[in-house]
């Protein structure tokens, strides 16, 4: 059974035709039985009717119409001008971007090439300078680049073999020079032996 408080809250919505059908039937049933709510419903209807009777429109002065149209025309002209400026900039944007990209690429390539340049060996330094710079992961070993060797550097025999070679003597055992080194040990004896020595040393 509906209470008067709820019925009062539904009255405006019902009078505006926005109350769902089921609730409207419940409200109508309550109003039929309750004199106080019947009076409240009539009062609400009168007030809404009065508000509905208030002026909802009024005459618009000519100056208002002209002023509004003028502002709108200025707005439309400003929009057209912005659109034209934007189109001009868009037409130039791609060539400018392409040019900028090309400049950046050229500068980047130039920087990379200057970083790849190997150090030229100084006279008297031989291979020591080259050995001092150990190869890194992203750089090839300097010993591999032989293009820039100074042709004027005099070839001097190092006093000691390079560490890599000294650590692996077996690398040179196949050399004919070393294979015949034993024979050379007797060279001095062969050279100095004469027939007058009595054949103390046999030839062989």
């Amino acid at each position: 059974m509906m209470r008067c408080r709820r019925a009062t809250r539904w009255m405006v919505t019902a009078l505006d035709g926005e109350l769902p059908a089921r609730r409207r039937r419940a409200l109508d049933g309550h109003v039929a039985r309750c004199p106080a709510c019947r009076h409240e419903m009539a009062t609400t209807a009168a007030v809404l009717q009065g508000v509905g009777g208030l002026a909802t429109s009024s005459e618009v002065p000519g100056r208002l119409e002209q002023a509004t149209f003028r502002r709108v025309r200025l707005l439309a002209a400003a929009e057209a001008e912005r659109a034209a400026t934007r189109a001009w900039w868009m037409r130039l944007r791609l060539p400018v971007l392409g040019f900028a990209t090309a400049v950046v690429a050229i500068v980047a390539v130039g920087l990379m090439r200057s970083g790849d340049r190997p150090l030229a060996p100084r006279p008297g330094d031989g291979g020591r300078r080259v050995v001092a710079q150990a190869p890194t992961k992203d750089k090839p070993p300097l010993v591999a680049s032989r293009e820039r060797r100074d042709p004027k550097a005099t070839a001097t025999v190092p006093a000691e073999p390079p560490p890599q070679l000294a650590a692996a003597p077996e690398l040179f055992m196949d050399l004919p020079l070393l294979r015949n080194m034993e024979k050379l040990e007797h060279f001095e004896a062969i050279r100095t032996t004469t027939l007058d020595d009595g054949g103390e040393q046999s030839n062989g």
Partner: protein
Amino acid sequence: MATVSADEAAPESAERPREVPAGSTPDAGSGFAAAAADPDVALMLRCQSGEEAAFQDLFRKFSPRVLQFARRFVGSEARAEEVTQDVFVQVFRFRHRYRPQSRFSTWLFTIATNLCLNEVRRPERHLRVDLWNRRDGEERPEGPPLPDPAAVTPEEGAAARQLGQRLEALVAELPPKQRAALLLSRMDGLAYRDVAEALGSTEGAVKALLFRATQTLKRGLRDYL
């Protein structure tokens, strides 16, 4: 000019299903179907494509209602005209945000409500009670007196006018949102869901606003009812 953000004044019209105008198919999703059913939608679509004449037609059709609506929120006739002008400039500026699935009048009064409520919040605004009082020698557009079909004598007519003026004053004293909900709901073609959209609120909130507004008016008109 009322300071209002573009998004606040001219929102994207909602695409939820709503009461479609008579003659259009319920599932009409395209603007063309809505335009065929609602001439205001057709005018707005032409306005979106840049037709100045379409905008002028919309102005002439709706500016009287917008002006009267604005009068009930601002303190002076001149300011009401300025607000009306601002409303239609916003309509033009943000015409591309309008979606034909909703009524043009709903979208228009969403903008008008936002600007009017902003106007009310301005600190320098002073509500002049004499807006609803006739000034000497001034032609002021006055709304019709409270309808009274039984009024046949001058005395009854005068009483009806007095009641109407009292009602106008009471409406002017309502809190802005209650006032907006009450006035919008009395406009032709605006259902509660349209009023809710214009206020950026819900139907339930609109019902509550209308209930409170009506209770206030009933208390103020106790001597007349």
